[in-house]
């Protein structure tokens, strides 16, 4: 008899321990909370997180759920209809726009320009290089490019490791797409043997620990363990430091706009959220996180 009791008790406790949750949740679940699924760009994910965190104090009823993965993941979610806001550090390609429009019965997803990201070129702090041109970068990264060693660029590495270790990104990343377009050239492939990292921070981390490495990532991922070098449009021209000012006046050659896409069927709260993002408080966070705000919100004394 005791055995039966024990068994029954155990089984009951096992099952109830979790099922109780389900019941309680179904009824008392905060019905007034609206969840916004915000997914996409890895470059923007920290910024998106900072916005979500701050917006909770502005509109406590809206809970923004942020996921990363890459612009490609965001665009795919937009096309599949599984998000409220898709983050992308590149413009929708024509084909993607068509697919998304077809998904929403002819209505276009709404594009919001929410700021800029300057793509910084990172090297190890011990590397004496101070500036690099787009052409030189292309020779380092593209298939058949002629720069494989730092000495090819006239740089003598103090560590003695002359071989350039190239950090790159996985191919569904918006950063990868942009870099290919702006530096490598659309027709060219990346050189074999680059380290394709899965996130912007991983690129920076690799560069921080590898004296002979070079890598590219959003300026928001800058840390004091890496060096950001100036970039020149052409070899011979002066190198430009990435900053708010040089990004906005377009003198820094590798900066790109960041976008948020809202499906036409999205909840009205999504548009309200983005309206807050492109207003003063939202744009202040952009600056605080190390990205570049829209022109109207740039600090007057920005360098």
């Amino acid at each position, binding site marked *: 008899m*005791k*055995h*039966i009791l*024990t*068994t029954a008790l*155990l089984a009951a406790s*096992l*099952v109830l*321990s*979790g*099922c109780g*949750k*389900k019941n*309680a*949740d*179904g009824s*008392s*679940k*905060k019905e007034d909370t609206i*969840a916004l*699924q915000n997914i996409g760009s*890895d470059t923007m*994910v*920290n910024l*998106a*997180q*900072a916005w*979500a*965190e701050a917006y*909770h104090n502005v509109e406590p009823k809206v*809970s*923004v*759920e*942020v*996921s*990363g993965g890459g612009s490609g993941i965001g665009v795919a979610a937009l096309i*599949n209809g*599984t998000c409220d806001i898709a983050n992308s550090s590149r413009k929708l390609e024509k084909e993607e726009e068509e697919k998304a429009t077809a998904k929403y019965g002819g209505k276009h997803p709404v594009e919001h320009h929410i700021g800029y990201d300057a793509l910084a070129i990172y090297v190890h702090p011990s590397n004496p290089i101070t500036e690099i041109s787009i052409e030189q970068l292309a020779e380092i990264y593209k298939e058949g490019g002629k720069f494989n060693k730092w000495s090819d660029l006239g740089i003598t590495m103090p560590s003695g490791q002359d071989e350039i270790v190239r950090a790159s990104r996985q191919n569904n990343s918006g950063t990868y797409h942009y870099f290919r377009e702006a530096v490598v050239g659309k027709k060219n492939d990346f050189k074999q043997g680059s380290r394709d990292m*899965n*996130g*912007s*921070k*991983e690129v*920076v981390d690799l560069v921080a620990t590898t004296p002979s490495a070079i890598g590219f990532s959003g300026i*928001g*991922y*800058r*840390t004091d363990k890496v060096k950001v070098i100036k970039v020149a449009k052409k070899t011979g021209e002066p190198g430009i430091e990435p900053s708010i000012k040089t990004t906005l006046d377009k003198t820094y050659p590798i900066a790109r706009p960041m976008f948020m896409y809202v499906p036409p069927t999205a909840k009205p709260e999504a548009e309200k959220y983005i309206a807050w993002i492109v207003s003063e408080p939202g744009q202040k966070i952009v600056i605080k*996180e190390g990205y570049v705000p829209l022109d109207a919100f740039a600090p007057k004394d920005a360098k």
Partner: protein
Amino acid sequence: MTMHAQIQPAPQFGETPFTRKKRRNEKIAQGIFAVMVACIVIPLFLIVGYLIKEGVSLISWEFLTTNPTGGMRKGGIWSALLGTFWLVGTSLCISAPIGVLAAVYLNEYAKDNWFNRVVNLAVVNLAGVPSIVHALFGLGAFVLFAGMGRSIIAASLTLAIMTMPVIIASTKEALAAVPRQFREACWNVGATKWQTIWRIVLPNSISGILTGVILQVSRTAGETAPIMFTGAVFYRKIEEGNLFAYGLGDQCMALSMHLFTVTTQVTNAPHALPFAIATVLLAFVLLVNLTAILFRSWLRSRKKW
């Protein structure tokens, strides 16, 4: 030493090369086994010690009960901790009953024919499927096909599918450990199969069954791949102190995923943060395992054979 000498009978024969060899081999075997144990135990202590040493400075009650703030660099891990609780609880609620009942059928009722042998083989093989494959299945079946979207329920179902084969296997093991004579005695006094299972087999194997089930908690809590695709998010703020801040249809944060994002994504996060998260995750798993061990020894003390 004197005790030892007393117990040992006086050597009847002098030491021969054969006995010397025997003793030497015994020592060698013992040495090898001791080294093997050290190989397992020392790294374990090193890992745990290192994690705690690096992470302990951050851990406090506040760390456990507040949401991450300051771009996930400050604050605590509340939303991730609660997310892990929910994922583990819900998935166990699904996998434990189904897994245990399926094992009872397979062990007690199923006849030994080709079909059931195929089922058994499938269960064993399913237990060996990598979690990332389960993740893809979960994404296709629950998130997209069943229309659950990325949610706790979709993630829990994925985790449940992943743990179920192991629960079935361990439960079958526990059931098979009940001597056949127990069942035969029961049948001989006219009991049906179900009566035998309910009154004899289950009570005598419950400790083994529960151990198998509870050990799956650690696996569920640690998995990142299946939930990354099906319901875990990078960031989400929830009400602090409310155990029901998540609903089954919500997405959630999870400790394993949080550890991953903090190390791979958040710049300038405090050095101790990932270690603190790892320590909490480890403590959660060890706590559950400890409960399992205590529970089992308690149940075993009541066993009558």
